[in-house]
């Protein structure tokens, strides 16, 4: 992960607030790095700020959401570094889609209902590839549809004539139209039924292997992320609470919240587990949080958790996570700590 030559995106201390009488601080000082071809999964409950973060990273925030701090650097295919937060709208538009694209949550609504599929490809090519002529644009749209497993004749179809799964495939084809280096996917399969979800996921994995783009994949489904991600960030109350290689997190999750999430769905490998959710609700992000935001729901919380916010730091041999258990001897065996504290 330290090979800077392949860096695609680096976010440092990004914060986002929804302005209002009491601003909602939806994303709080999040930092991340993404390298070429890497799949970064971001997991968390709804309302934890993961979608907001995705919008912030692609500069798609709209009022009342505003980025209140941090920098976002993007390295394009020619190796030039762009400070996304400082870009002029025109420059930003040039980078968009050609360098990084997005797949939105609801395939149902991500397509313009009154123009044909082909016309929506056309809009992209006309904007970013003005040198392409009409026939080339049409041909490329057909090839892209074919690539995601849709009959090329469908370029003439309107969105309402396609099924939900087909629409999401079209949306993915649109996202890949200019062969971007980064695709941000915000719950791309949530609105689909399980069978179609699986097909789409396989499609994404295949295309990624073929084309080699990096992915930021956002979902509440941690199990899914374990399967497809290289690295994985768990988000809670607007912060990353654990940021780890996906391979190891399933067995060695350090943060009690991650552990809780892992417990709340059946394991893919290994035997049956105790299926439990996490009691309680996420905190109100309009308030300043004293101490660890997860403390009220945490079965291991002790006094320090309620007064002092833990930092996102790595423990020796591990990856960054934000939990005071890191400083407690035998912290990796949290249940004992809990007993100690109560005694």
């Amino acid at each position, binding site marked *: 992960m330290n090979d800077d030559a392949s860096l695609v995106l680096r976010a440092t201390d990004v914060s986002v607030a929804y302005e209002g009488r009491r601003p909602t601080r939806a994303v709080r000082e999040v930092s991340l790095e993404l390298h070429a071809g890497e799949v970064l999964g971001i997991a968390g409950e709804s309302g934890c700020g993961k979608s907001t973060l995705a919008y912030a990273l692609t500069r798609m925030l709209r009022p009342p959401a505003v980025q209140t701090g941090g920098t976002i650097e993007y390295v394009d295919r020619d190796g030039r570094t762009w400070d996304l937060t400082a870009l002029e709208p025109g420059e930003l538009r040039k980078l968009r889609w050609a360098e990084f694209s997005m797949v939105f949550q609801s395939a149902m609504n991500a397509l*313009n*209902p009154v123009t044909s599929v082909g016309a929506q490809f056309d809009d992209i090519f006309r904007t970013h590839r003005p040198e392409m002529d009409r026939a080339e644009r049409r041909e490329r749209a057909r090839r892209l549809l074919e690539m995601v497993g849709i009959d090329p004749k469908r370029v003439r179809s*309107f969105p309402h004539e396609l099924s939900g799964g087909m629409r999401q495939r079209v949306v993915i084809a649109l996202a890949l139209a200019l062969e971007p280096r980064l695709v941000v996917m915000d719950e791309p399969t949530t609105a689909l039924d399980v069978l179609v979800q699986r097909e789409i996921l396989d499609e994404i994995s295949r295309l990624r292997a073929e084309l080699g783009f990096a992915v930021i994949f956002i979902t509440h489904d941690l199990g899914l992320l374990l399967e497809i991600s290289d690295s994985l960030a768990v988000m809670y109350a607007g912060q990353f609470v654990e940021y780890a290689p996906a391979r190891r997190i399933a067995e060695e999750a350090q943060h009690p919240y991650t552990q809780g999430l892992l417990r709340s769905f059946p394991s893919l490998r290994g035997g049956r587990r105790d299926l439990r959710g996490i009691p309680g609700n996420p905190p109100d992000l309009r308030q300043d949080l004293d101490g660890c935001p997860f403390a009220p729901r945490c079965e291991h919380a002790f006094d320090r958790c309620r007064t002092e916010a833990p930092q996102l730091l790595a423990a020796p041999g591990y990856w960054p996570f934000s939990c005071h258990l890191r400083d407690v001897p035998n912290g990796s065996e949290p249940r004992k700590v809990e007993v100690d504290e109560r005694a």
Partner: protein
Amino acid sequence: MRLRYIGRKLGFYLVAAWVAITVNFFLPRLIPGDPVSIIISRQTQSGTVPAGEAAALRKLLGLGSGSLLSQYGQYLDQLVHLNFGLSITEFPTPVADVVRPAIAWTLVLVGLATFISFCLGVGLGALAGWKRGTRIDALVPSTTLLTAMPYFWLALLLVYLFSQKWNLLPAQQGYDPSLDVGWNSAFIGSAIQHSILPAMTLVIASVGGWLLGMRNMTVATLSEDFVVAAEARGLSPVRVLTRYAARNAVLPSVSGFAVSIGFVVSGQIVMEQVFNYPGLGSLLFQAVSNEDYPLMQALFLTISFAVLGSNLLVDLLYGLIDPRTREA
């Protein structure tokens, strides 16, 4: 492809036309006393009433002989032959001949003014929605003042300003009566000049409705996923606004056309009286003043059919601009 949509619309307007015709059949029953003898006696004062006029009138007013059904049949027979009887106002001209020349005046004026008003309102509304929260957008609520004005009062205001105070435009009639009516430049120029104030009235009074509807729909559409997606694709703001936001936001304005045109036509009818405009509204006013029942009936039907026709036209247009009306 869209045959089913077109068929459904045609069917609907046939039903609507039938309802208009039937309402018109029952309307004369509201007249206290025997309308036919009233009409004949009024006509007798103006000149010789041809034989058979009373019987024809009776049929036309739905008061023919026999059962209700046979009265209805006789009434329809009169309508099919465009036999609306003789006008009292312009006795003994047949009503159909009185109405015919007025149709074009009203149709052209309302059609053009509505077209201008729609384009203006939809354009400005899209702009205000796009720039929501700015100074342009803050002006939108003030248009409600225009929308709540009676058309005829606005007409009076414009006549007072443009005609009386500043003496810029003619305020009466549809053309200079000293000119020959026909396709010559002098007459057409005069007709255009005379139509400016009435058209201005219609546009000013109706533009607010289009504007407001379009503004709100644009604001709502701008937060739709497909607009956000279009922006994420790096499309230029103009393209996002026109091809994605406005293109979708305009649909409810088009499908709500019936309500709006109803307003405009109602306004136009009263307004023509202010300008002495030679259209259907002035004629209706004359018919009302002279208790010219046959003329009133013919006018009600004519105006209804004109409105139904324009609604059908707009519905068919809607079928073209919204692909979802196609069969999947």
